[in-house]
Each structure stands twice: as structure tokens, then as C-alpha cells.
């Protein structure tokens, strides 16, 4: 449940669900997010511009000409999540090619983790992931938790350009770069699947908070033919 509600500036509500990162806390965040999304859809609440769920926080930004922090704080305080379960258990499969031309950081990872590329990939693919949040850049999913044996910090010097489709890992998380972007995650492969489609106006982001995600390995040939 919410531990603390404070203001972030004069036009946002900062809801703190605790300091840890785990699926129970994140499920609360997503349940509050879903509840507020429904209130907006049903026009039962005025002035909210955006909701940003993350691992353990929910930020509600609003139009200060329409509402205020104190009004929205009261709304949030009155939300009661009886069962902290997520209905949206949609499962998504993501193909990844890990050839060295796509998996850019195996040399670094092998050295840091003391594991071979094969061992790293076995531990990476042998797991179901949970989407904690989507963002930073459009559609980028933050997935967890990766096996403890393959957890590694970010690159000391981030790349100026990480190629679109790159699959990265850092600490307990994995992500997918939906656009070419600067970034410091360890890159283990690349997916040919479109994770963010701006032309799909109804549903542009393939992976949303609360979704389950599986990765599977494909060959370079399969990678190149994937979108044929």
C-alpha cells in the first residue's frame, strides 16, 4: 500500500509505495494506476494529465488550472485496493539473436561474471520476466528479475548510440531499446520484433506494466527473415 503521498512541485502527486523493488509492491503501483485510469476514462475525475507508474512509485501530473495537489491527494487516499492481483497477465514472446554482431558486451560480461557466453544465455533465457514499467524512451520495457548469477552494473562509459532493438541487462533488470538511443546497459542481443509501433495508435507499446515476457533465441538467418 501507499507509504507516503507528497507533492512533486506544484502540479504533481508523488505516491511512494516503499523502497524495495518487488512484484508485490509493483502490483500495488499498477493497481492504483489502473484504478485512476478508469476514473479518468469514466470522467469521474478532472485535471489529470499523466500517470507514471514505476517500480515503487506512481506520479500523477495534473493541470493546475483545473485541480490541486490537496484535491488529488484526497482522491488517492480514498482508493482501496482489496485484492492486490493483476488481471492483465498477458504473455508476450520476444525472439532475440545473440550473435556477436548484436550481442555487443559478452566479452565484458564473461570477464565480470566469470561465465561463458553459453552459460550467460542459458541463465537469461531460462526465465519468465515481469514488466515493472515502460518508459524513459517510448515503449522501452523494464523487465525483471534476471538470475542473480548474471547481474552486472552498467557500462562505465555509456554508449552514445545503442542500436534499435538491442536487448540489455543491468543489475536485476533487462530492457529493450525501442529506438536508437544513448545508453549504458550491457547489450546481449537484438530483437527483430517491433516493440513500439507509432502507427498502431490504439496500442503502440507491445509490452506494458504488469505483462509477462519470455525471450527465446533465434539464429541470424531467422533474425534476418523475421519481418518478411
Amino acid at each position: 500500500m501507499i507509504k507516503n503521498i507528497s507533492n512533486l512541485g506544484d502540479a504533481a502527486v508523488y505516491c511512494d509505495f516503499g523502497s524495495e523493488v518487488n512484484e508485490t509492491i509493483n502490483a500495488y503501483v499498477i493497481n492504483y494506476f489502473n484504478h485512476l485510469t478508469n476514473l479518468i476514462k469514466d470522467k469521474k475525475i478532472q485535471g489529470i494529465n499523466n500517470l507514471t507508474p514505476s517500480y515503487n512509485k506512481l506520479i500523477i501530473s495534473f493541470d493546475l488550472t483545473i485541480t490541486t495537489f490537496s484535491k488529488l491527494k484526497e482522491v488517492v487516499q480514498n482508493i482501496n485496493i482489496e485484492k492486490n492481483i493483476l488481471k492483465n497477465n498477458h504473455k508476450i514472446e520476444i525472439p532475440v539473436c545473440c550473435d556477436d554482431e548484436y550481442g555487443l558486451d559478452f566479452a565484458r560480461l564473461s570477464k565480470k561474471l566469470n561465465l561463458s557466453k553459453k552459460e550467460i544465455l542459458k541463465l537469461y533465457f531460462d526465465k519468465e520476466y515481469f514488466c515493472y514499467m515502460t518508459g524513459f524512451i517510448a515503449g522501452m520495457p523494464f523487465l525483471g528479475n534476471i538470475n542473480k548469477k548474471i547481474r552486472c552494473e552498467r557500462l562505465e562509459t555509456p554508449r552514445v548510440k545503442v542500436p534499435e532493438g538491442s536487448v540489455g541487462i543491468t543489475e536485476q533488470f533487462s530492457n529493450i531499446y525501442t529506438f536508437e538511443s544513448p545508453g549504458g546497459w550491457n547489450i546481449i542481443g537484438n530483437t527483430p520484433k517491433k516493440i513500439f509501433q507509432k502507427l498502431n495508435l490504439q496500442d503502440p507499446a507491445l509490452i506494458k506494466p504488469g505483462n509477462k515476457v519470455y525471450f527465446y533465441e533465434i539464429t541470424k538467418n531467422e533474425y534476418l527473415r523475421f519481418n518478411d
Partner: protein
Amino acid sequence: MTNTYFEILRPGINTTIQDAGRNHLYHLGITVSGAIDQRNYKLVNNLVNNKLNDATVEFAYQGPLLKLNNGNINFAITGDVFFNVIRDNSKIEEGKCYQNYNLKDGEQIDIISTKKSAYGYLAVSGGFVLEETWKSFSINTKAQIGPNNGKKYSINEKIFIKEANLKNDKNKKINYKNSFNNVVRIIKGTNFDYFSNHAKNIFLNEEYSVSRLVDRMGMRLDGPNLENIVNTNIKSEGLIRGVIQVPADGKPIILLSDHGTIGGYPKIATVISADLDKVAQFTPGTKIKFKEVSLAEAEKLFKDYTDETNKYLNEHN
């Protein structure tokens, strides 16, 4: 549809379409975008009798050189901008911001540069022909969303105009006072106590200057380092316009309209809503100072800001 359009003879540094912004998509990683100076954006629409949330052309520093083809229009420019109107007899007329002008077929608008500020706005009566994406016309160049395939304008591209033949109804002017001041009012951030007492003192009392690393995403500041005594990273969480983050190098970054939706740097403060337009207009080298206010004061200052905007908008009604 008309065939009236601006031909872009020189694109300028960062010329895009912007409006009130794109909401309800932060949770998918799509940022708000929109005019970086919302007051000047509303005023330019008002000057040509458009709706206040119509799409406008936003430019930064050096603006575009635009040639009108196949029509006669009425336009206005707001901001602190140096521009000329090049008439069809090649006569150059020096332009004034905050008033509307007629432009005839073949004539040009040469937006030479902004003066003491970064951004300016151009609107035409009746608006532009543009495709809407998620209820907004704003161009988000990072995610390539919006008109012109989500890209800033390049040479020889066209911006189509809805109304081909507009008679000048009446001259409209706003007596706009550009009251420059360098004090940025803030509310303490959610990670204010990550910083040493010395750092807090520096932040609230010393001068910072706007660095050259500034764009629509954010503004990096130069000045004394802010010592973090807890952790230079936080668990990534949501961001909003106006948040001031401090990464490990100790130099603050103010987030602007195209900011990333999630970030992992501690938040020392947030700029109050009333000062967001002002901050976005600072140019590199500008010296600024932060001043802390309470939430109640910030709400009052925002009401004053809104009243002042409305006063300008109502000058003619």
C-alpha cells in the same frame, strides 16, 4: 483542401510544430512535448484569431525563411524575435512581434534570430494542414512522433495552410512586456535531503549559469558541484517538466518539454509552474538563482501567471 503553403527556403536551427502538448501517454514512455513557452504560444494564436490550442510553428535561435505560395494570409510572431517581411517588390519591412501582418502570394518571412531568449512562435489565421497524433500536433523528434514524420523541418519542405485567401479583418496588437528576471522559484524536491547542508546552501544561494548543453529535453547548468551524501542514483521513477535532477557529476539539469518520462537521478527541486515558460527561454550563459517557495505560494504565483496571460488575451475582447 487549398494549395497554399510556406516553402522552407532556410529551415533554421530547430523548427517544429508545437501545440498544448500530448497527454495521457507517460506510462508508455511518450513525453508531453508541446510549446516550450506556453504563454507566447497562446498569445500568437490569439493575435491571428485562432483557437488558443491550435498548432503553431516553434523556432529556436535562428528561425526559418519562409516563402508563401498560392494565397494571401494573415500571420503573427511572438517571442523576443528579430524578423523581416520581404514584400513582393523586394522591399524589406522590419517586423514587430505581438502584432498581426498580411502576407501576399510570393512574399517571404525571414525570421533572422531570437534576441535575449531562445524560442519564438509563428501562427497563421485558420491554421496549418497537419495530421494529429494522439490528440496533439506537436513534433517529438526523439520518438519521431507528429507531423513531418516527427522530424524538425528541413530545406525545401512545405507547410500547408488551411485558408487560402484571408482578408485582414483588423490590426491586432498586444502590449507585451517582456520582464526578464533571473530568479527561478522552486519547491524542494523529493530527494532534497540526499544533499549535504553545504550543497543545499549553495543551491539556494549561489549563482548558476545556463550551459551550452540545452535543448527541448533539458538544460544543464554550470556552477558549483552539489555534494550528494546518500546515493547518486535512485530507483528509476517518473519525471515531469521542471524537475531539477542532479547526476553524479553534481551539476543540476532542469527538465523541459521533451524530457524522458523516467529517470534515476536524485531530484533536488522542481521549478514552479509559473516559472516554466521563463526558464525555457534562458539562453546559454544566462546567470540564474534559485529561490525556494512553499506549495501554497507556488499555487498563488501560478494564479497570478494565469491572470496575467488572460489579461493579455483579453486586451481586444
